[in-house]
């Protein structure tokens, strides 16, 4: 199928626009983080809502009085301030731009798919684009239910770095893929793995912040409650882990049809297996007394480091069957 160059060009433009918008959004988020005072009213409201439920490790506390009013914490409801502070406004602008950036990002992937007439994740540039989009969308979903919006900058910075590298050193022109990739499993296996890895970026960032926050040093007091960070990490990991598992198993099914065996310890397979084991250890650690909190956060951080290692080192340095980077 011939490549539609016009659409490919529009795809590149929207990609670049998404990166720029993300950068601005990240700056706004970081301003919110920098200008909001440690003892902001919002923060106290959060502490009252979430903190009470902490002991049980469950959601909000319910106090149904005779009047029928309930005390559950809902985003945007507890904050009674009629006029949001300047920091708050910056954060909201950041969030709006973040959504805009995600839409542009999505548009660039769709345009690439339309221009090449195949699933738009056939080389490393496209794979990285899907991965980062998954991370951003995960973040946007989590922000709706957890009071962590101003950490958006910390998620967007690695996203922007990955997208910048993808758009420069890893960039590959729109084109068809080689015969081994011409299978419907490309649409299934690669998308699931990319989305799974992208979602795992969020717990990676949250776990690093958790480690900083729980280190007890004064300069990290502005970070949100450690418990909220822990919940960000856990929720996104619990979503991504089955996805990652399904992705690996789909890969095995594809490998059986393409390479003659479902599992052969190809470097990519091996590191995927290793990170799967590490995330499994995270889930176990979080349910084991003595391993909750910092040890679990360390394990999650390690898992994310392995995901990044698998993306770059294994694709670009070692040679294996998964060498589809398209980087020359």
């Amino acid at each position: 199928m011939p490549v539609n160059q016009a659409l490919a060009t529009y795809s590149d433009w929207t990609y670049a626009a998404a990166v720029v918008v993300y950068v601005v959004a990240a700056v706004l988020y970081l301003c919110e983080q920098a200008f909001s005072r440690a003892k902001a009213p919002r923060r106290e409201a959060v502490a009252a809502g979430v903190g009470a439920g902490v002991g049980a490790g469950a959601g909000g506390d319910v106090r149904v009085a005779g009047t029928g009013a309930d005390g559950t914490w809902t985003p945007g409801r507890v904050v009674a301030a009629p006029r949001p502070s300047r920091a708050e406004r910056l954060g909201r602008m950041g969030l709006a731009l973040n959504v805009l950036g995600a839409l542009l990002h999505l548009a660039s992937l769709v345009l690439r798919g339309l221009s090449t007439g195949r699933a738009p994740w056939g080389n490393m540039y496209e794979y990285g684009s899907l991965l980062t989009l998954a991370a951003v969308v995960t973040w946007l979903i989590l922000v709706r239910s957890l009071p962590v919006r101003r950490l958006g900058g910390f998620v967007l910075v690695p996203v922007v770095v990955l997208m910048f590298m993808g758009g420069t050193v890893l960039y590959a022109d729109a084109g068809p893929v080689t015969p081994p990739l011409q299978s419907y499993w490309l649409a299934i296996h690669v998308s699931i793995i990319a989305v799974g890895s992208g979602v795992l970026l969020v717990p990676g960032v949250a776990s690093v912040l958790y480690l900083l926050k729980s280190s007890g040093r004064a300069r990290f007091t502005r970070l949100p409650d450690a418990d909220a960070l822990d919940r960000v990490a856990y929720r996104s990991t619990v979503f991504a882990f089955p996805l990652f598992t399904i992705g690996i198993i789909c890969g095995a099914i594809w490998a059986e049809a393409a390479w003659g065996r479902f599992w052969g310890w190809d470097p990519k397979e091996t590191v995927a297996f290793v990170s799967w084991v590490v995330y499994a250890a995270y889930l176990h650690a979080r349910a084991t007394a003595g391993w909750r909190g910092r040890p679990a956060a360390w394990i999650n951080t390690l898992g994310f480091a392995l995901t990044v290692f698998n993306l770059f080192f294994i694709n670009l340095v070692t040679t294996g069957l998964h060498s589809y980077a398209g980087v020359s």
Partner: protein
Amino acid sequence: MRAALAFLRNTWRGLTAMRTALTLLFLLALGALPGALLPQRSLNQQKVVEYIEEHGWWGRLLNRLQFFDVYASTWFAAIYVLLFVSLVGCLLPRTWEYAKQMRAKPVLTPRNLARMPHHGTAETGESVEDVMARTRERLRGWRLVEREEADGARSVSAERGFLRETGNLVFHFALLGLLIAFALGKMFGYEGQVIVQAGGGQFCNSGVFNYDSFRPGLRVDGTRLTPFCVKVDRFHATYLDNGQAESFQADIQYQSGADLESGTWRPYPLRVNSPLRTAGDRLYLLGHGYTPLFTVTFPNGETRTGATQWQPVNQVTLASEGATKFDPPGVTDAERRRREQLAITGLLAPTAAFHGELLDSGFPEARDPAVAVDVYRGDLGTDSGRGQSIFSIDQEQVRDGKLVKVARQNLRQGEQLTLDDGTVIRFDGVRDWVSLQVSHDPAQVWVLVFAVLVILGLLVSLSVKRRRVWVRAKPSGDGRTVIEVGGLARTDQAGYGAEFTALSRDLLAHEEKS
């Protein structure tokens, strides 16, 4: 005796403790990692040899510690066997506990529900019985038990989310099953590779000797392969202008089972992502390359044709190297034969691109084939007892002066060269060859079944919440009833709050409506 028992018990407890399992998980991850970073024999024998040579004592040490066969090594096996023993030790009591809980009634309602992490209370004009009836209605689908309490109070304790533990157990048992099926496949499976010439070349899975390389499972001796035959009629590839491959296809015919008796051939288009599945085996198209065709006319007028596959040295342009070897015809004297054997070696370019006299390949398709050959005459060493590659000549014979280069020339299709003794070598063109792999794994369907169970178990165990709710209705004395609701999520899953809020609103807020 007692001490020994205590020791065994402690070992068992230690092994099945969660922290041991976690440690073993980390060891498994750590142990698997070298396999991705160091060359592995199972993937590339040649690279392992090079690595050991380059790294001296370090390479030899790694070799002795089985670091080049990580996944077949004793220590890796020790880690996963211990992990699975630990898993079994954890699963057995949990399964027992699970079976007991399935039959047990939900626990008694705690005296003080206000202490529960989720809690609510309200007063209503309904009777205790009405509240209970309404509660039962609202908690349909929950496993619940109603109890009489002192002072005319009644309470319901309800529990939900047993599927979580079901999923958890299914996941872990399926992992065990997956490992066992994997191991069975490794024992009773085999993998063989063979190069077959297009244009009618045949291969039959009748014995190990038909393969170029054969990797048997531990319990496979190669005597009982499932018989089937394939014939490669044609291979065709299409390429983009930049040389990137667009499609590969080998048109083959095969016969298996009853077809072998009747001699029926069935056609199949063999492609990279669509293997042939027949007789319980799978046949894959792994690669392809070119065979240069040479016709040699010897001084006595006899001709011989040579068609030996050469191997690609550049995967993009398919420039290939190899050696086509000839015995002189009509020579029975071994001594004389050793003086007059011929070998044509060099480079084959499917699409010739000359840089001056230097030949290179410009494109992977055979558009304008040419060879740059070195012709050697003398003793090839084929009867020296040493094995030699079909892709090269024995360089030792060249060094010893037993094999001498007698010509070097570029030949395009149809061109020929003449040696000093009058022998004429003509390059007739190229023929495709394909590299095929036969795989046999009787257990892989079970691996798939267990893998699906792993996914299902995981999804259920991570999405279902195990939670309890208690409702107590107590006459307040003035004809009204106090309703108390308490809730507890049994797992660290967040999100029970919302469900409990809805629940308690329904159970408590009745009065506002009436």
